[in-house]
């Protein structure tokens, strides 16, 4: 890799991911890199809930549709935020295990840098095992940037 040409940001709809998207937009502008946004629908959790009888089949399908609608909405918001700074965005929706889908997408598409939001506070050992962004950070072979410091990120984006 001679330069960073493709930046991938995980979009989840959370506040953390919003600031990750601002930082990714800033980096894409600075490095003149292609910017990609990906939203992964957590299919594993949907299947677990069906297996546990907490969801019925019709309900699982309904939530899956809701999550697809949310994905479209959040990716559209991301695109709009990027376009305000004249940065075009490519958007993808995937389904599966969140961290695994992001890692696989990044590897398959020769992404140079992955940007994620600040990690959730670790309250327990289980957080490390189950938190998808934590697992992505540990398992990715592609460099990962964690977008901390909201004030700085907001300023960098606004000054573009």
């Amino acid at each position, binding site marked *: 890799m001679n330069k960073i040409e493709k930046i991938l940001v995980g979009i989840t*709809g959370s506040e953390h991911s919003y600031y990750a998207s601002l930082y990714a937009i800033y980096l894409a502008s600075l490095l003149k890199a292609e910017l990609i946004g990906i939203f992964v629908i957590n299919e594993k959790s949907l299947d677990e809930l069906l297996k546990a009888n907490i969801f019925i089949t019709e309900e699982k399908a309904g939530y899956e549709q809701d999550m697809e609608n949310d994905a479209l909405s959040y990716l559209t918001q991301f695109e709009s935020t990027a376009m305000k700074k004249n940065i075009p965005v490519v958007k993808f929706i995937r389904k599966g295990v969140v961290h695994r889908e992001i890692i696989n997408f990044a590897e398959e598409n020769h992404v140079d840098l992955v940007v994620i939001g600040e990690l959730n506070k670790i*309250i327990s*050992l289980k957080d490390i095992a189950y938190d998808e962004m934590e697992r992505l950070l540990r398992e990715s072979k592609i460099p990962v940037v964690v977008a901390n410091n909201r004030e700085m990120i907001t300023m960098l984006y606004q000054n573009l």
Partner: protein
Amino acid sequence: MSLLEILDKNCIKTDIQSLDKLGSIQELTELLFKNKKISDKSQVINDVLKREAKGSTGIGKGIGVPHAKTAAVSKLTLAIGVSREGVDFTSIDGKYVHILFLLLAPPHSAGPHVEALSEIARLITPPGIKEKIKNASSSEEIITIITEYYNS
């Protein structure tokens, strides 16, 4: 996500009095309303019962997970109830429910809602934890049990 992030100890009731589904849901809804977690009791009960009409959330082995999307909450909200005698929740295994997790989510937050339900499913899996919760005599004790689960 930890359930402790969305659970207020004042929204845990260790002595559910009702023996039927509607009554137990009403008790937990009243608790949430009293603690200003929901804006409209009737809406919550209607939304939860609408979901129950599609299929009981009495998932078996003494557990009930009534849940609904409702405009009566602005964020994920959880209440836990324990019934010593058992509630007739028309569970899939025919057994009475002794532990209830009432989970409410605002519309358009499908992802976090699914995540919270998954957390509940994981919490009730390890051997012994259901018995501990069922035998707890205070909300503080239930908080301690859940905290110990997360730290194990």
